[in-house]
């Protein structure tokens, strides 16, 4: 293995985030553990509402975790005080899903990109900041003439480039990408994805890539974690997962990818039935069991842990225990 890619950069252990609601505790993230190695990309997939975004925000402490650990550089982030956390924020950033909502409409492009630099005081000299902003704009492929424009004057792709530039402004090592391309046109999606992959190579970035789009995740990820209702149900390298999906939910997800084919047998897809059950006070047992074609009595009786099937391919399903 290459030197980058073997050192664990961030390790999440038993992370939980419950929201208190009038009806009970909403288990948004429930006992999720994983490890991302330096310079690699972990794709987190799952349908909407499964807690992917909350997971990303909890790791960055944009929402406080209920319990668990986030080990970054040997230290538990969740125990950091305000001051330590502020230092830490330089090293970890986030790219948001909606390039329309994530940029302050009253600030110009250059102000938006300069803001993290000013806040973190990585640079204090005005000229240096300007140079850095120009350099960042060039890096993400924004023409210099956009310096004084406002976000609303630009199209989605360019706006997302601003989002990327802002995330890069403090030279972070770790970036949470919260569905960065799902609000964009397909043609622009590819541009942004390629940009992000180039940046990763140049700057040795580590990504946690949250998405519901499997073709995107296949394109960009080294490892993939599949989430269902707050829990991680399957974890494997990208290749392994697409070649050999083990969990019935993962299989169903992969089956749902549309194929450009007119043959009859391709049109007949196995589609999982039913609805996602409520994340508020979930019943014990496998949460997918209500919809699972292989569900047995056993599934509903006990919680199913993630078990390594060899080669780092972990599955949480009674079929493989």
């Amino acid at each position: 293995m290459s030197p980058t890619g073997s050192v664990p950069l961030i390790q999440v252990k038993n992370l939980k985030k419950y929201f208190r609601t009038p009806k009970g505790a909403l288990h948004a993230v429930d006992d999720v553990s994983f490890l991302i190695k330096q310079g690699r990309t972990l794709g987190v997939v799952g349908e909407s509402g499964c807690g992917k975004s909350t997971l990303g925000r909890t790791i960055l402490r944009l929402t406080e975790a209920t319990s668990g650990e986030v080990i970054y550089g040997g230290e538990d982030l969740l125990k950091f005080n305000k001051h330590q956390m502020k230092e830490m924020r330089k090293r970890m950033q986030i790219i948001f899903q909606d390039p329309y909502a994530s940029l302050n409409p009253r600030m110009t492009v250059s102000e938006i990109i300069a803001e993290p630099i000013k806040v973190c005081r990585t640079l204090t000299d005005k000229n240096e900041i300007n140079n850095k902003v120009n350099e960042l704009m060039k890096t993400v492929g924004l023409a210099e003439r956009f310096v004084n424009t406002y976000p609303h004057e630009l199209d989605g792709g360019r706006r997302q480039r601003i989002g990327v530039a802002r995330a890069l402004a403090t030279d972070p090592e770790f970036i949470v990408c919260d569905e960065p391309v799902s609000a964009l046109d397909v043609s622009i999606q590819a541009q942004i994805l390629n940009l992000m992959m180039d940046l990763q190579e140049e700057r040795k970035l580590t990504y946690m890539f949250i998405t519901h789009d499997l073709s995107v995740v296949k394109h960009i990820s080294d490892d993939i974690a599949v989430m269902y209702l707050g829990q991680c149900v399957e974890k494997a390298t990208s290749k392994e997962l697409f070649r050999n999906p083990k969990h019935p939910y993962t299989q169903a997800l992969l089956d749902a990818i549309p194929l450009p084919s007119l043959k009859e047998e391709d049109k007949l897809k196995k589609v999982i039935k039913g609805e996602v059950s409520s994340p508020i006070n979930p019943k014990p047992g496998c949460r997918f069991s209500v919809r699972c074609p292989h569900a047995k009595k056993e599934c509903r009786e006990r919680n199913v842990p993630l078990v390594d099937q060899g080669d780092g391919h972990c599955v949480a399903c009674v079929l493989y225990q």
Partner: protein
Amino acid sequence: MAAKTASTDTVKKRSQIKAIWFRYKKNKLAVAGLILLVVLILVAICAPLIVPYEKVVEQNLMERLAPMSGAHWFGTDEYGRDMFARIIWGARYSLALGVGSIIISLIFGALIGAVCGYVGGKLDNIVMRLMDVLLAIPQILMAICIVAALGQGAFNLLIAMSASTVPKFVRIVRSSVLSLKQEEYIEAARACGTGDGRIIYRHVLPNVMGPIIVQATITMAMTILAISSLSFIGLGVPTPQPEWGTILSENKSQMRYYPYLCTIPGIAILVSVIAMNLIGDGLRDALDPKLKN
């Protein structure tokens, strides 16, 4: 080729204030409002040069209720005081009170509202209930209480007027902040470690400017009129001192026979209110980059 030359010399970063002025300039009405206000302020400042203060308070019963003439441009009131002098000097009191009380209530209202909306929780609850109590008391009644407690005088009047308008600003700002703080760009600011203070002043307040400014311009007009009501019951600016609202109510009894005695101060109030409204509208549009063209 053109693109190449453009990329070699860096595009000049335009400052926010210059950009706002650039957009403001385009609105002719707003510029007219600004000129109007500047003229009014100049009149207020240069009042001693235009007409000496003695003429404001000098009573000349021989010439009481004199019509408009070369000697008395706007006539005289029932005590024979020169109306022109009173209107000119009145600009000092009216503008200082109107603009001053708005600035004070704007600053306090925006600050309290933004902090309450952003921080939320107990602080928000306590402060907002306090504001509710203040809002429950009619503005005039509240001003009467404050003036009665602090004593009559222009400065106390300023405090009274500001204190009674602050709750309105707090409410407006707070509600805008509440809807704003869920925005992703606020979260983005937090993600790079921006402190709460900077978030409020850099990200939240600029985005709630629109409703604040509209409220401010409306309040300005209401404040001048409220002062005249206070003067009517003897709690406004003390009598010999001229203030447009006060002049208006002093001459109320003469309205039937000498209508210009009421109309002229009325026009003065109207002009300043229009100026403020035009400026307010222009400023609101200029501050919003989305309405650039």
